[in-house]
């Protein structure tokens, strides 16, 4: 009994003292409450649509994180070795290309990427939905990986300035091992996790926005319905838009607020999931900063 009480007290303490864990639990709790509410009041086809869209968006978000980490790591290490190797022309070319990518507003870049995806869908190259989700995520990651690249470069730069780097080189440890194991894995994991959370939030936001935007279509033959359903594309459907429009009714008739939770559940649900996920992601990232003094 005493052990159970102690364990509970420890969990409670950990829960209260770490903001990131609190918000992660809050997100799951929020989603569980929403699911319960939907099971009671939302029709089954709409619920199935939302579940598929949520799953696709989350999978998309995780894939963006994965791709961004790989691309960020590759570009940061590429720049590092080109700089160290004295290969000035290649270094300048790579820096120039990355800066070019940085200056292009993300949504424009993703929009152009979606135009290419549309062409591939029209030519029947991209048929399987999972392949489409992967390619959509890859396109998004092309415009967010620079944050990861900057972070890795900054971490390498920080540790290079310390004696520890040269000392390890003197001990005969390979530079790649120092960077990948000692700097990135052992001393920058918290930073990378924090960045991964931030990238996830950004990915969800960008993917929802682009899917909402292209609901009018990127070609006269292909529209967002040709892509796998995500939160953004389901929100862009007429019935969801009507639900969001209904929020405006509350300003003229406050009592209508009760109707929102029953009559306009689909659109309100998706909007809530998007906003709640973004808020929770922001707080989890902030909690990590506070916990690990990043």
């Amino acid at each position, binding site marked *: 009994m005493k052990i159970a009480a102690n364990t509970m007290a420890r969990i409670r303490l950990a829960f209260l003292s770490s903001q990131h864990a609190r918000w992660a639990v809050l997100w799951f709790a929020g989603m569980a409450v929403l699911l319960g509410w939907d099971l009671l009041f939302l029709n089954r086809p709409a619920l199935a649509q939302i579940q598929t869209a949520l799953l696709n968006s989350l999978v998309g978000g995780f894939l963006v994180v994965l791709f961004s980490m790989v691309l960020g790591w590759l570009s940061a290490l590429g720049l590092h070795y080109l700089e160290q190797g004295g290969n000035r022309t290649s270094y300048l070319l790579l820096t120039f290309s990355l*800066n070019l990518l940085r200056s292009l*507003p993300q949504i424009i870049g993703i929009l152009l990427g979606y135009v290419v995806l549309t062409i591939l869908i029209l030519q029947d190259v991209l048929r399987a939905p999972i392949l489409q989700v992967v390619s959509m995520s890859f396109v998004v990651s092309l415009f967010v990986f620079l944050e990861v690249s900057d972070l890795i470069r900054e971490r390498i730069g920080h540790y290079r300035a310390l004696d520890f780097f040269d000392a390890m080189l003197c001990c005969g440890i390979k530079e790649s091992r120092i960077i990948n194991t000692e700097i990135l894995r052992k001393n920058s994991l918290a930073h990378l996790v924090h960045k991964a959370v931030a990238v996830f939030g950004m990915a969800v936001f960008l993917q929802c926005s682009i899917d909402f*935007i292209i609901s009018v*279509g990127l070609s006269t033959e292909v529209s967002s319905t040709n892509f796998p359903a995500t939160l953004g594309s389901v929100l862009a459907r007429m019935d969801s838009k009507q639900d969001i429009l209904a*929020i405006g009714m509350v300003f003229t008739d406050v009592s209508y607020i009760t109707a929102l939770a029953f009559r306009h559940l689909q659109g309100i649900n998706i909007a809530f999931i998007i906003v709640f996920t973004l808020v929770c992601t922001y707080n989890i990232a902030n909690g990590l900063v506070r916990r690990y003094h990043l």
Partner: protein
Amino acid sequence: MRRKLIEHIGSIAFVALIFALVILFLKDREASDRRARAELVAPYLKLPSVDFGNPRDRALFRETLDLFRPRSRAANDSLMKAIEAYRMAQFTDPGMKTGTGDRGLSWPAVRRLSGMYVRFIIVYAIVLGLTFYAAQTLAMIRFVRMKQGRSSYCAEFLGRAKAWNRPEAGLSRRAGVVPVLVPLFKALAKGIAYAVLFSPAYVIGYALRAGFEMDSVLFMIVLGVVSNGLLVNYANKFYTLLVAESRKGYVETALVKNLSGVYAWNSPEGISYRSLLRLPRRFPGHVLQHVYLNARHQYFPTLKEQASFLITGLIIIEMALNIQGHLCYELLQNILYRRYDIALTIILGIFVLVKVTEILVDLRQHREERRYENRG
């Protein structure tokens, strides 16, 4: 600085060149595609006895095709589809209509786009200025609250609710429940504010669509500032810089040298709301003055990424809310109808805007750094 300028101008020139080549390639390909499509279906459309608008004639034509070429049913299908697509394009494709004005990138189109571009720049500049100011203000308020040792409103509410039953804690039952509930209401208000600030622009836009004019510049500006998480994210960045700066050694030295380190609101040695809100911000005799100036110096370069993200937000607003007559709505429409020359010109314009912002930020940063190093 010269190297940076060359890089910026070089990237503008590079992108312009690439876009020009793409436009030329697409124009050439589009013309040849159109010619090929027309050549494929033209002989059939000229058949005197077949009216392709009539379903019976279409069915008869299809059967005749199958009779003549029984082994190539798939090719017959494709031909029927091509004829249908061509006929539909005659009605829907602006490129095939006569009397619809200029179809590609022409001077009238450029003039029309220029007006939209200027309006876009004005909105962008105002939103950038407002978010720059508001992000710093929010971060400063959060920083001062942190220095005051204030906990979150929820924790404050829980603390007061616990203390309510204990008169020794300072809250008596006679004062009523109002002092206990105030932090709860504040927490609720903060929650709603967060929900709004994190909402994508299209959610707020559609929610307010019934009551506001979507295409007004004022609405665009307000939406640009408060939505898409822009304000919260950049306020958080500035807050992080303030916290990092406040941990540095010179702050301790300044306190020893008798600068004020009191963070109480509106007290003689503390921080006044007025000094926090006015521009330029001044906190004479207070250590926050130096913390703020140094944090602001580091924050300034983030304007470059803020500019890019802000433009992303404005594009989302204009495209998602279908605000007609605005630059980004025009961009989406041009992509939709495959007028890639106009679409790429608009994208180039937006890219140049980001680059000009980056150049201005770099110039300002360079000047400041020279001043810091006593070279300017």
